[in-house]
């Protein structure tokens, strides 16, 4: 199963902090050796300021109370830095917490800086310290604080590069505090600035888009409208090319989102094309399922893949929540497609396909017919479902065309010659 486990791939494109939930999840699921995960966690925390946390894990992992000296050193280092930063940042925080000051801010950054300088004697050093402090807080795992600080810093930053990193920081912080509304907004802004940035090389843009898509997974799969937004974002040409070049594994999430989201069937064709095109680079049960169903029309295969999908989804941090939804939608997918090309289906066979017993299957179909989603009749004597055909004969369509023609010609003739009724 681990072969379809994407955590290690995803981690390459995620922030350290954003990887953490994934590791926790993996630990819960027990896909990997627990000790390995703990060690991974320590490695992850090594570069952050969450030293205490790292120590705890260490203790748990090795069942000791001893902590390596490097960690202790790191701890004092962090504390010292915290103190010095705190000191540097105190005046500006005091000033910015005053709502009157904020009100005086304008969109003009230069003005803001000038204003602070004149009114409160706050220079670039303090402002820089503010940024460093918020980064520090973020590294400490104090995400809400970091988010607030960044919010405060944002009107004061001057360079566009800094602006970008503030936005990234904001997105990460909001995501980690699970404030998804704010995160969605941050995501939108970030995307906008990514698309508008003119100075970045194509390679950088590609990289950043890939990051954005990965980071957004956290947000999209946790919000109601996220799946829609995900489809929108991922199908943008620029992002789609980033997927095909850099991160084919994201197709899994796109595919899952499309399957789950019934309203977005229209993008299916496009998705299938991409999946097919990239199948030599990436394929997993979810994409294979779509491929079986819509390329090969191999319903048995699709059924098989669906079973595989189940376990894949179960072990995917992002998708685990939509497992049942996905399975239901997928089943409907199979059924719908099946019905499209059959005029008569044995219910026994169908129930087998749908993993239901005969009664339930009949009920399910009946429900579908009732809700007008299926034009069919059940022939209970033969035990079959007979599809209603809405075929129109060639003659009819010809007649239709001819009728339309005559009407239009008449109008035109009237217009040209002048209708007798309107003649003066």
């Amino acid at each position: 199963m681990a072969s379809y486990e994407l955590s290690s791939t995803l981690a390459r494109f995620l922030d350290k902090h954003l990887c953490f939930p994934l590791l926790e999840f993996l630990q819960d699921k027990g896909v990997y050796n627990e000790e390995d995960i703990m060690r991974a966690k320590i490695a992850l925390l090594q570069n952050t300021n969450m030293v205490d946390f790292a120590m705890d894990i260490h203790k748990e992992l090795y069942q000791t109370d001893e902590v390596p000296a490097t960690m202790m050193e790191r701890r004092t280092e962090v504390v010292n830095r915290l103190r010095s930063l705190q000191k540097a940042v105190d005046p500006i925080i005091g000033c910015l917490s005053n709502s009157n000051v904020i009100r005086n801010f304008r969109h003009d950054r230069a003005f803001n800086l000038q204003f602070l300088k004149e009114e409160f004697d706050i220079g670039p050093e303090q402002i820089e310290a503010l940024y460093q402090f918020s980064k520090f807080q973020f590294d400490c795992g104090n995400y809400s604080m970091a988010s607030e600080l960044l919010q405060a810093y944002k009107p004061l930053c001057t360079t566009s590069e800094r602006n970008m990193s503030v936005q990234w920081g904001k997105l990460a912080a909001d995501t980690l505090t699970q404030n998804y509304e704010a995160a969605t907004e941050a995501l939108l802004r970030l995307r906008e600035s990514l698309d508008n940035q003119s100075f970045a090389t194509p390679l950088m843009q590609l990289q950043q888009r890939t990051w954005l898509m990965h980071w957004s997974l956290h947000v999209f799969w946790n919000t109601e409208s996220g799946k829609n937004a995900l489809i929108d974002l991922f199908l943008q040409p620029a992002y789609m090319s980033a997927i095909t070049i850099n991160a084919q594994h994201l197709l899994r999430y796109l595919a899952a989102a499309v399957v789950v989201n019934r309203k977005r069937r229209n993008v299916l064709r496009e998705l299938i094309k991409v999946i097919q095109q990239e199948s030599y680079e990436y394929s997993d049960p979810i994409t294979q399922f779509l491929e079986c169903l819509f390329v090969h029309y191999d319903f048995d295969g699709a059924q098989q893949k669906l079973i595989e999908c189940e376990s894949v989804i179960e072990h995917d941090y992002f998708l685990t929540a939509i497992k049942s939804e996905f399975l239901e939608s997928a089943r409907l997918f199979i059924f719908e497609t099946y019905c499209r090309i059959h005029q008569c289906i044995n219910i026994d066979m169908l129930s087998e396909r749908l993993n239901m017993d005969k009664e339930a299957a009949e009920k399910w179909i009946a429900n579908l017919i009732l809700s007008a989603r299926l034009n069919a009749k059940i022939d209970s004597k033969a035990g079959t479902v007979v599809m209603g055909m809405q075929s129109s004969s060639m003659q009819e369509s010809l007649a239709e065309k001819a009728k339309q023609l005559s009407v239009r010609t008449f109008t035109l003739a009237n217009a040209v010659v002048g209708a007798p009724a309107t003649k003066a």
Partner: protein
Amino acid sequence: MASRFWTAGSDSDEEEVDASEEENSSSEEESSSSSSSSSSGSDSSSDSDSDSDSDSDSDSDDSDAPKKGAARFLAGSDSDSDSDEDRRVVLKSAKDKRFSELTDTCDEIRNKMKINDWSAIQGLFDELNKRLERARKVSEAVGTPRVYVRMCVELEDFLNDTLANKDLKKKMSSTNAKALNTMRQRLKKHNTSDEFAEAVTKFRENPQEDEEEEEEEEESSSSSSESDTDGEREETEKRPAGAAKKKDKLLTMDSAEITYEMVAKKLREIVTSRGRKGTDKQEQLREIVTSRGRKGTDKQEQVEMLQFLANVAKGVPQKLEVLLQLVGSLFDLSPGISNYMKVGLWKRCMLVMLEIMDTLQANEAIVLDDSAEPSEERTAEPVAGEDGKVRVWGNLVAFVERLDDEMFKSLQVIDPHTHEYMARLRDEPVFLALSQKVHDYLARIGDVRNQPKVALRLIEHFYYKTDAVYDAMRKLTMLQQEEAAASAAAHPEGAVAAASAAAETAAAANTSNEPGEEQTADDKVALPVPLDFSMDESSTAAMKRLVGIVFTHGDERAKARAMLCTIYHKALHGDFHSARDMLLMSHLQDNVMLMDISTQILYNRSMAQLGLAAFRLGLISEAHSCLQELYGSGHIKELLAQGMAMGKFQDKTPEQELLEKRRQMPFHMHISMELLESSCLISAMLLEVPAMASSPLSVKKRVISKSFHRILDTYNRQTFTGPPETVRDHIMAATRALMRGDWSGAYGAVSALTVWQLVPQRESVLDMLKKQLKEEALRTYLFSYSAQYRSLSLDQLCTMFEMDEKAVYSIVSKMMIAEDLHGSWDQPTRTIVMHSIEATKVQSLAGQFADKATLMVELNERAYAFRTGGLRDDDDMGGGGGGRRGGRRGQDGQWEDDGGHGGRGRGRGPRLGAARMGLGQGGQDFGGHRRGGGGGGRGDRGGFRASGFSSNMTSGLPDRFQRRGPYRQQANPNMQALGSISRPGGGVGGGPGGGSYNRPLGGDRRDRGL
């Protein structure tokens, strides 16, 4: 005065004697002697006047005549004391002067000899004789000056050479040839005459001795000077006797100077001066790339010289210098860019290059650098620079590139079906070894500017090799290395010595006169592959390594080429997807037209290979799109540089033809044309046959492959078709079988092609073809015959096409979903039930007719609306309806079916709509009636003009359109009354199309109407 006259007298006397001795009948001689005798007095006086003058005598001779009187008078008026003083000066300097005059003339003759200018030589020879007399007179010596004798001997030799060379003789101009003949006669007489015969024979017997005494000999001849050690001299003497005989002038001169220089100068100075002289000669060569060296320089001689110098060079840097020069002059030996370098010569170059590389490897302190100061100005042995490195001028990369080019050229020319070609290909490992060495060397000295160039050359030797070829090459390399090792063991001196010995023999052979002998000797030159060279395990690894270097450091062209080579290589190894991704990501296809032709050819080759790769993998449509453009062009041979097409209608100038010839790929790099053709046509067939079957009535609907259609048409028109012979025949036979759904017949025809033997994965390709043919046959069958069935059993289809159930199911389902097949599965009975909406022929034709009629109505409506401003305007907006209609047309699928019209409609729709919208607004804002029409007219004009819509519709119904009142009514009911009145006068908009635009705005006309 008297003495002066005496000298003058003796001068003329002597000359006359000389002339009589020669018994020369040449009129020039006579005239010159008579003129000199007549002007003897003035001659001498002018001599005395211009004792410091170094002008050539002929000048003063010519200018003497007018000066005669004055000169004589001047001489006569001279006082005795004056003349005495004069004489003293004259006597003192005259000897030197005469001698230098003689040498000058000799040099001039030599120059003329180099360019084969016999008429000039003749003149100069006369002059020389004159001067000889004067010199004798001045020096009062009895014998003949050595310079003169030597000149005579040289002249004679040269004359004989020239006479022996028939070709040269033929090329001579008539005057030149005449002069040559005269010279022959004169020289014969001259040299055999009593006075000179003895001197000449003496000279011939013992030239060294003569020259030893020649103290006046200038330093220049020391260019060929010699070293002091006996060992090295021995080497000189090792030269074969035959060569020594011809060349002894040089070599003997050399040895003569050894002694001279040994006495005269310190060794180092000799070496440097020699080195300098050597490069001095070469310096010019370097500068004038096209005509290297001085005109007429005996290149062969130079090579000899350098070869010799290389053996005696002092110090490693100098040896390198000499070797580098040697390579340069070896290149000079091969004529022109259109001819290829002789194989033997090439091999010699290789040997020298390898020697250079060995030297460089052994002496890490020496850096070859083309930016280093040329050694010309150096007088002392180059000292190590501040970094402990000795810089030597040289451009290894240029040499490597030249060698590569020469090899390429020779492969172009040699007949690929001969043994010679194979032998030539065997030289490749050595070249690779050399390039690799140069490459490593450049990497060592960190020359990132040139490194990619060599890397690219190597890439271009690797990219077209399949694994099998590459392995064979590796084995060959190892074999050659073993042989080299064995021969090295046999010769105790080691491989390098053996190599140089080989070079020696080659050199000797090269210098011999008979070309045939030269050829054989050349070919015998053994080229040992250096032992320290090893090829990468696989070509992929080699490519990866080299391409990486090019991508990091190379320039744009090198990068593009490396990229294309990689694509080719990947495609060749069946890695279609990554090759395609590389091609697409590099955007090469966008700007390949801007690149040089050879890169374009490489691009075409890559595309062809990509197509073949796709074909092998069974990606038919990809293969088709790759190959279609190449094949469809009809110039595939030229596009791939694999031969010249004999175009009926295109006449190429010889220059064009030559250029094209130079571009040709050597045979071993060719992509099989037949394979390309089969792949392309089979792909086209697989795509085209079902498409044709699906819409039999509108074949022109979408043509996938034009060339395929063309061929098919030709075959269909044939009255009799014989059994298939060519590729096309086979594929056409397969096509006809496939059209009936007979996959096995099609497969039989296709698999009978012989080209499949060229495909390494023959079995898998044929399997793939079988599978594809079955699938397409099934599709074709269903397309063609489904109308005849009420239901079709799945099992029957399975047996018919020998496919498994799943595959048939998949294909049929796909067709159902795409609505290609009007039927559906009946699951319990495992059959396909056809729905009888499949149109009969009449029905579908009727349908088409209806579509066309609809289109016509549509056009009429639009043409009408375009005059007036909207037909179906049910809403307030004047042109809203039109806009909608335009929009709808854009989306409506049925219009696209109608070929060109539909397409145009699509483009036109939105634009027209926009125009309408403008009109509508106008109508509303201004009460609707006045500006409305005008606005419409203007708006529509824009739309139509842009779409290029012709006016045939309007011309169809011209005068109907002039009345637009009622129409207006319909558009806007509250204008009813006005509209009916305001029918404009006839003929206003009568002209079709353009005419109508010139009419006044609607408002004006309306006024008129009112």
